[in-house]
Structures are given as C-alpha cells and as structure tokens.
C-alpha cells in the first residue's frame, strides 16, 4: 500500500527514459515554443546586452566629454555593438531606449501568456488522458491501487508535470539565453575582465547545486513532519469524545507539543539553510567586485588618452550578478526536475497501463466498445443465469471461490449471506464482469457472457451497492444516471416506485435540488433510495444489491424494504445482505463460507435446518436495539410461527 503522506526520497540522477515519455505532450505546441523562444531571446538580449551596451556608451561619453555642456542636442554617444560602431545623439538614444522598453514589455506579455497557456493546456491534456485511461481500466487495477493514491496522481502530479514542462523548460531556455548574451557581451567588451569574473564562478557552480539538493531534502523532511501533524489533528478531532471521556487532554496536548516541536526543528533547519545560501553567494560576489576594483584598472583596455574607462568597470561589476543568477537558477531548476521525476513516472505508469478485461474482436465488431456502443445489436435479456464450474482466484494459486455450479431461473430472487471474506462480493463481481472467472464460465440466457459485450451485460443490469454513490448535481441528474436520456416523467415514476417521491417534492427545488459533497445533506436512507431509483429507471432484467441495506438505520429500514421489494419484482435479482432481516422473503437463500455455498434454500427451510443460517440469524437478532427486536420478532417470527414449533 502506498501511503499518501510519506514521500519517497529524491532520485539520485536524471533518468532520461522517464522524461522522453512525457515529451509528446509538448510536441504539439511547437509553434508556441518558437514564439516563446523568440520573446525570451529579445528579453535576454535587452537585459544582458542592450542595456549594458547603451549604459556604457553614455558613461564613456560623460567621462570624456567637456562638461558641463550647454546644449543636450550636442551629446553624441558612440555605441560599440559587437564591433559594429555607430553614434547616437541624445534624442536617438532616448527613442531607442523607450522603443526597446516597449518591445520588451510585449515580449514579456507573449512569453508569460504563452508559457502559462502551455501549462494549462499540458495539464488538461495529461489529465484527460489519465481520466480516459481510468475509465478503461478494470477492477483488478482499482483493487490493487488505493483510490487516494490515484487521486493524488491525477490532482497533484499532473500539475507538477505541466509546471516543469512549461515554466521549467522556459526558465531553462531563458537562463541559458541570459548567460549566453552576458558572456558574448562581456567578452566583446574585454576578455581579460571577463576572465576575472569567471574565475570565481566555479565557487557558485559548486555551491548552488549543493545548497539546492540539501534544501530540497530538508524541506521534504519538514513537509513529512507536517503531514503527521495534520493526520494527528484529524484524529484528535474525530476522537474528541474519547479524549474527553478518558480525561487525557494533557497527554494529547503533550504529544501535539512534541509533534509541533518536531515540525519547528525541521522547518528551522531548512530555513537556516536557506538563510545562509543567498548571503554566501553575495559574499562571493562582493569579493569578485573587489578583485575587479583592484585589477580592473590594470587589465581593462584604456581609452585613447590613456585614461581608464570607468564605465567599463561599472558595467562589469553589474555583470557579476548576470553570471551568478543564472547559475543559481540552473541549480534551482535542476532540483525541480529531480523533484518531479517520480511524478512523471507515476502518471505515465497510469496512462500506459493495459486494461485486463477487454472484449475480443468479434464481440467489439458486433456490439461496439464503450466509446461507440452498437446498441442496435443488443439482444433482449431474459435473466437466466448459470454458473458452470466457476472458480476464481485474485492471485494465482489462492482460490477464493471454489468450483461451483448454480442455476438461477429468470425472475427469481436469490440472497447470498455469509461472513466477511466468504466470497459473496466476489460472486457479484464475477456476475457484473468486474472480474472474469478463472475457471468455468457464466452463461446468461444460455450464452457465455464473454461472447457479448460488457456494455450489453451492464445495460441490462441494475446495481445498488452499500455506499450509495451520489454524484455532484441535482437529484434529477442522480436518478437519471441510470438512464441518460430519461425524461422528468420517467424519473418521477422511478422515484415514486421506491417511495422517494414524497420526500423530494417537499424540498424547495424538488428534483432540481442540488446535492453536493456526496449528498451530505441527505440521510443514508434517502441516498440509498436515490440509488434504488437510479437502478430501477434502467428497467433492468437483472438487479444486483450489494449490501444495499447494511448501513441504514432501523427507522428507514421499513421504507427501504418496501422499495427493495418493488425493485425486485419480476426481475432476476441477486441480493447480498449483511442484515438477514431484509432477505427473509427471498425465493432462495445461499449461505457462503470460505468460498463455498454451504446452504441453499428458503428462509423457513434454512431456519428449520438449524444450521449456519439459523446461527447467523440468532446472533444478529441479539445485537438489535430493543425496539428493533420487538418489531422483527413480530414480523418475522410470530408470523412465521412454524419455525419454532
């Protein structure tokens, strides 16, 4: 089991084979990339070449000219543009500066918008692909993969990846361009001074990655400690009643104090590392400045009159940060790549998973797949089910259902009872073709169900599970989920059939009442009634209730029981029940134990047999609240007096 709280360690190297898989997502936006690169090129040129060159021209002029001057129109700035020399008067100088500034703003606009455009697009692309894949994957995958893990991958990792594919990439290009332009400009001005600056760069090249990886590790540790705090906090809120009853507030407070101290320590360690990093780089920069101040006047090219060109020294002092910042940035991006690598691996593993249950080609040809079902070829289902020597194992060699043969006539109701792990749920999973039998076959209306599509099977099936699932949307939407083209009338009919209607019409918005947060505003019983309506509206031939009444309070039980009876009438139905009181009227009851059907008969028959069923029934009865006991006794025992006499 993967734990969503604990993060794994940083990878120790960049694994290109991982990254190559993700590049197709970028490829289709190549045109945007070109625009982005062009805009970056201009911005980097402006910052690293244009401004230093123009500043130098102005400073050199002001150093050599006869000052004070009278007419500003007389100013002439000699620009040395990588060997191409030309002069500008003050007005031309102003126009050039302002013009370039406006173009830079435009370049930033394009760069910023397009990069974010990429980020948004790539994220939605990846999410879409992963989402579609999740619809294709079968239960063997879902059972192996905790849903929390899947959710985290689709929510967090996809945005992390899109960030690195957009901003990560663009920053890399940007920083490279900045570094390149700076180097070119520097060397074109004075290679000797350039070498002076570069002499200290190795220190930064060594320092930056060291700090970045240390920082990443430390901040991960801090984050883990914090996750522990959040989990503990949630536990204490849920367990508040227990904490109060035991009067252990001091103990839990002490533990909280320890946990928060742990966070504090780890966070402080990480922030201390952070605090040292920037000043350390600044210190190196300052030393380099001093070196330039001392050696600059000696090694810098002199002006014609033998004077030192002061402007050059100043510009070079400015270059120090233009060299150091990109190196720091590189280290930062590198850290981010390392941080994201695992996310890429996980997300791509989802997208590249192959579903385990697929219809074979002839079936797809005839019935279509879920993207394009050919419903016109679907046969009508009668509802005769036959299990022929069916056995099943999730893991090879560990059989959870031992070979059994079973015949279920159309229109009968069959209940399956037994302890947790007896194989009841597996039985239903096989019938719904969430899994396929490892041995034997399941025939529906005399034909192996693998010879028809899953779409055919499921479009004829109504399914209600223990945790009624409510989708975000209206009550109408939720019922219509069973039949996507149902009209309001059909929805109302279904809702009336399960005793839901009288409740819904009391709501201010009736069927258009919005349900949010998995239907928090409804009681468990009401949610379950919606599930029943959803199943009934399909008018299925086969109805499967998987512990559909287990979590309902006894008060709503009567209402539900009536709904169940209506839902089952005239259909083949399979009911897994935890609460036996709900299935006493079934045509047939199967008792399962350790993957085998050990008893088979009606309620009265099985009670008289005085075997496992009898024992289960009595045990449950004892656990009921007194009012439920009285009610059940009157209904199920006194009326069926023969059981005990």
């Amino acid at each position, binding site marked *: 089991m993967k734990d969503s709280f604990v993060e794994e360690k940083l990878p120790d190297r960049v694994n290109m084979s991982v990254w190559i898989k993700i590049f197709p997502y970028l490829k289709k936006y190549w045109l945007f990339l070109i625009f982005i690169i062009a805009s970056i090129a201009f911005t980097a040129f402006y910052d690293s070449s244009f401004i230093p060159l123009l*500043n130098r021209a102005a400073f050199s002029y*002001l150093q050599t000219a006869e*000052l*004070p001057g009278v007419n*500003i129109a007389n100013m002439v700035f000699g620009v040395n543009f990588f060997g191409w020399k030309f002069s500008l008067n003050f007005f031309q100088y102003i126009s050039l500066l*302002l013009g370039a500034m406006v173009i*830079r*703003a435009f370049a*930033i*606009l394009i760069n910023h918008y397009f990069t974010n455009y990429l980020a*948004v697009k790539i994220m*939605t692309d990846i999410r879409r692909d992963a*989402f579609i894949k999740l*619809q294709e994957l079968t239960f063997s995958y879902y059972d192996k993969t905790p*849903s929390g893990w899947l*959710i985290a991958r*689709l929510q967090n990792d996809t945005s992390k990846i899109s960030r690195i594919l957009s901003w990560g990439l663009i920053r890399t290009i940007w920083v490279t361009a900045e570094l390149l332009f700076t180097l070119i400009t520097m060397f074109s001005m004075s290679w000797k001074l350039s070498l002076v600056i570069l002499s200290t760069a190795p220190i930064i090249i060594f320092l930056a990655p060291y700090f970045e990886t240390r920082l990443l590790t430390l901040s991960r540790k801090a984050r883990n400690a914090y996750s522990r705090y*959040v*989990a503990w906090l*949630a536990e204490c*809120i*849920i367990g*508040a*009643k227990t904490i109060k*009853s035991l009067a252990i*507030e001091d103990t839990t407070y002490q533990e*909280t104090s320890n946990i928060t101290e742990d*966070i*504090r320590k780890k*966070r*402080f360690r990480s*922030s201390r590392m*952070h*605090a*040292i990093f920037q*000043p350390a780089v*600044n*210190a190196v920069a300052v030393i380099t*400045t*001093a070196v330039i*101040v*001392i050696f600059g*006047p000696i090694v810098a090219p002199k002006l014609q009159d033998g004077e030192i060109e002061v402007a050059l*020294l100043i510009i070079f002092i400015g270059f120090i940060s233009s060299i150091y910042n990109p190196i720091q940035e590189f280290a930062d991006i590198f850290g981010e790549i390392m941080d994201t690598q695992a996310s890429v691996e996980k997300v791509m593993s989802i997208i590249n998973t192959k579903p385990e249950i697929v219809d074979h080609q002839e079936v797809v040809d005839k019935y279509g797949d879920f993207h394009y*079902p050919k419903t016109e070829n679907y046969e009508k289902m009668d509802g005769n089910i036959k299990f022929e020597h069916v056995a099943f194992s999730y893991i090879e060699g560990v059989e959870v259902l031992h070979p059994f043969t079973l015949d279920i006539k159309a229109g009968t109701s069959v209940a399956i009872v037994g302890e947790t792990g007896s194989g009841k749920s597996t039985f239903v999973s096989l019938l*719904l073709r*969430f899994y396929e039998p490892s041995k034997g076959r399941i025939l529906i209306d005399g034909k192996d169900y693998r010879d028809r599509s899953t*779409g055919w099977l*499921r479009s004829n*099936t109504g*399914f209600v599970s223990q945790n009624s*699932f409510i989708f975000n949307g209206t009550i109408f939407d939720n019922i219509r*989920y069973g039949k996507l083209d149902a009209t309001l009338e059909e929805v109302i009919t279904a809702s009336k059939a399960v005793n839901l209607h009288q409740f819904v019409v009391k709501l201010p918005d009736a069927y258009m009442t919005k349900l949010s947060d998995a239907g928090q505003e409804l009681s468990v019983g009401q949610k379950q009634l919606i599930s029943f309506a*959803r199943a009934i509206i399909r008018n299925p031939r086969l109805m499967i209730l998987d512990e559909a009444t287990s979590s309902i309070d*006894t008060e709503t039980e009567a209402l539900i029981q009536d709904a169940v009876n209506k839902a089952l009438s005239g259909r083949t139905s399979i009911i897994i029940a935890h609460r036996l009181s709900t299935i006493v009227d079934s045509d047939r009851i199967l008792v399962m134990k350790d993957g085998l059907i050990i008893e088979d008969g009606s309620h009265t028959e099985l009670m008289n047999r005085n075997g496992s069923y009898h024992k289960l029934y009595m045990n449950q*009865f004892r*656990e009921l609240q*007194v009012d439920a*006991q009285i009610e059940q006794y009157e209904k199920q*025992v006194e009326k069926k007096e023969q059981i005990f006499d």
Partner: protein
Amino acid sequence: MKYLKIMYKMTEGYRKHYVSVFVMMFVNIFLSLILSYLNAILIDVLNNDIPNGHIPRFILELLGGQTYLRNNIWLLAVLIVSVGLTAAVIAAIRHSLRGYIATGIGKNTQLKLFYHIERLPYESLKKMQSGDIIQTCTRDEEVLRRFVIFEVSMIVYTAMLVTVSFIILLDISWELALTAIGILPMMMIYSFFFVKRVRKLYRIADESEAQMTAKIEENIRGTRTVKAYNNEKFEIDNFENYLDDYQTKALKFEKTNSVYISSSDVFVFGQITLTTLFGIYLTYTGQISVGALYLGITYVSQIVWPVRSVASILSNLAKAVASMDRMNLIYNQPMEDLESGLKPNLKGEIDFKNVSFKYEDGDELILKNINLHIGAGQTVAIMGKTASGKSTFAHLLSRLHDSNSGQILIDGIDIKDINRQHLRKNVATVLQEPFLFSKTIISNLRIANDKASEQDIQKAAQIAHIHDSIIGFKQGYDTPVGEHGVTLSGGQKQRLAIARTIINQAPILIFDDSLSAVDTETDIQIRTALKVREKDSHTTTLIVTHRVATAKDADFIIVLDKGNIAQIGTHEELIKDKGLYQRIFEIQSRME
C-alpha cells in the same frame, strides 16, 4: 484594530527577536546602499570628479581625499569587501533569526489552537465541521504566519529602502531624487487595483480547478457505480466540460495576469529609463557627477521591484483578514474549565435530583425531571428504545453534556463543583463507538494512564477478554492499529476500548451500550472478571444495554421511555410488570 491585536498576540515570546530582525534589516539596507556608494566614489575618484552631496564628501575626506584614494585604490576594494562581507553575515543571521521566529510562531499558534479546540465543550465541537477546523489549523495558520513574518517585513523593508535611498539621493540632488521615485506612486495605484482584478480572476479559475479535481475524485471513488452503469463514455464527455470550463477560466486569468505583468513592467523599466535619461542630462549639464548618475540608476533598480511586490501584498490584505476571522471563530467559543473545582475522593453514590436536559438547538427535552438514587457499589442496567435518552443519561454523569436544570450529586457533591478531569477520571465511560488512535495497541492502552505497568495493562486486557487476540498478532502488544496497522473487528475494538478504560480503577464505571458489540458469553465473562478484581471495594456500574441476559444481574433496572423513567425495579419485579421489559424478556428467552 482587532486584527493588529491578533497579530500582536501571535508574536508572543518572539517580540524581542522580531524587533532585532527589523534593526538588522535596517543595517542591511544601509550597508547595501553604502556598497553602491563606494562604487560611485570609485567612479568619481577615477574620473577626477567631485562628488555631489555632503555625505560623499565627508566619506572622501575620511578616506584621505581624492588624490590619496586614486593612488590607493586597494583601500576602496578592502572597504567594499568588508562592507559586503559584514552585510552578508548580518543577512545570514537576520534570515536565520526570521526563520527561527516564523517556525516558533507557527508552533505556538498550532499549539494554542489545539489547546483551545481540545477544551471546547463536546456540544460545540459536534456542531463544527471537522474539515473547517483542520483548514483553520493548517491553511489559515500558514497564511497568517506568512503574513506576520514575510509580508509585514517586506512592507517594512520596502519602506526603509525607499526612504533611505531617497534621503541619500536628496543629499546629492533633489531633482535626481524626485525623478527616481516619480513614477512609483502611479505604479502603486495601478498595481493595487489591477492585482485586485487579477486575484478575482484567479479565484474563479481556482474554483473551477477545485471542481475539476472534485470531479476526478468523485469518478475514482464511484468507479463501481460508473462501471456497473456502463457510463464510462458519459463520464469522459462530462469531464471534458470540466476541462473546458477550467481552461477558459484559467486562460482568462493568465491573459489578464500577463497583461498586468507586462504593463507594470513598463512602469518598472520606465522608472529606470527615466532616471537614466534625466541623470544623463543632469550629468551633462554638470549638476551631478558620473558617480552620482551611477548611484541613481543603481538605487532605482533596487527600489522598483520591492515596491511592485508591496502593491500586490496590500491588494491581497483581504486574504489575511479572512484567515484571522476564521481563527477567531474558534477562539471566540468558550472553553471548558478543566483546571478549577474540587478533587474529592469518590465512593460512587449517585443522586439525580429533578434533572432535565435538552440540546441547545433542540426543542424537545431529552431527559425529563429524572429523580434517582444509586447506592455506592450498585450495578444498574438501563434499557430503552432508540432515542429514549439512554446515552444522554450516561453523558450527563461525566459532564460531556451539562444538565439544564436539577442537580446530579456524587457522594453528596454536586458534580458541577467537581473538577471536570477529576470527574471523568472517576466516572469512567466506555463509549458506544470505540475510537482508537493510529498507534500501537500498547500505546492505545497506556494513553489513559501513562504510569500503568506492563502487568496492569495485560491484566486489563485479560479482563476485557482481548489479551489472547493481542498475543495472537505477530507483533503482540506492539501491533499498530488503524489506518496503517491491522484492521480490527468491531468487537475487538470495543474490547480494547474497555481494557483502556478499566486500567484505572474508577469508582464509577459506565458501559454506554458498549458491551453489545461483544457476544453474550464474553459479556458475562468481562463482567465477572471485573467483579473479581473489585473484591471488597465495589464499583458503581451503569450498563446501557438491550440484553436481558446482561440486565438481569443488575441490582435494579431502569427502563427509559421518551426521557422519562417508565419502569424501575429488579429483574424479578419487572418481568411481572407489564411493559417493555417484560415483552423483550419474552422475546429474548424465546429466541435463545
């Protein structure tokens, strides 16, 4: 004002550090401005220029005058290095100290919130959404911490930087100084309002993303339903709508944000360009030196970025305010008093005198005018239909709820005069829903009494009939339970909860329907084992139950009905009395 007070309270214990961070910050700013100054002096010295302003002249005199410096450039280099290194060291100390404060404040706030939440009365806690509480303790705490530490210091930093730079420039040339900050007010106003709009769009996009991720979560959690209803295609098409909505809103935000960034860049670079051009003019006309021109450009480049950030911080104040409001929602709820009150030695005689109870927001009385005497050491069974007030009855004794009227006395002392923790230690309750922490079994058992010895714990586990199951686990008592550990059955959990409660031998023991999850035989064995342990000093025991087999051994039985005591008496008496007890006795004896 009340917000300032909250922020002031948050810094408790770190105020001295907080002030010293600001002092160091000022020194840092000053040193970094000096550093640029030294470069400017260098320029003027090399240029044979006379620097403008009193400060540079003063410094120049201090360093031995223009000519001397020109021949001893190393002196400037040494100065630059020493000022720069000092600044770096101070910055490192300052940032570390700031981290120390931030993490310390974080811890304090977390603890303070926890302390408060833990002491909220059960009834108020029940009314709050646990998700909201967690949000406040995590996200709101973080927003506020960042605000108090980083954003406030960013504002102060910028204010100091602008002021000092402006004063230095003013000393050189008031025209230059004014030009250097000329566009800033406009940029502030522009950014302030534009950022507000950008944030609004951001929130819209963010909400849309939240909906999309909620949809993903819904789909994954509902896979069984999706697949059973073969609605995969519908889900995909539906998800496309969410993707679409998000894309539209996110791109709208990105577009506006990009326009903001690039247009405010015009202000930023405009300010720098303006200073450069006007500075060139001032230099050309001889009003300032080349060094001063350099200084002007450098200072402006240092000022503009922080000013832009401050504008967006200010336009985002609402976020911090909202967080403070949510935090106050918790702080404003009164806490339970766990400290004061009597701590008498209790024997376990209980009296109810005209006790009534109703929930704060309910209209109906849950318990009506209950009068009752239970002698020390007696065992009493309480029976009744669903919602007859059984659990409330039990909760009143340990003051998880407080009665609205009437008096509950233990050994003649009103329980409202007894210290709450002391009372709850003495009125040990095993709740209906067993709750275990995600820890090992031994830590779960020891949590009620950290001084309990290994033997005490094993003894309690034996009495609760769980010892054998525990040693059946591979790691025995060190087996973790809960989310990351073994899955226990409801009965096992309940027996662990019983063991945990009986480690302390309290004079009053309440089973709030908590023996029902164990089977009848175990139930009897647990109760017999408890009797054996008690020997002479009998524990007053209240058992809420629906089992006649459990109730019949009690000294007397109370049958509650709609908040009233409907019947009271021994088993023998009640089975002769026509009523609920007789009926359930009939049924249960027939069903055995």
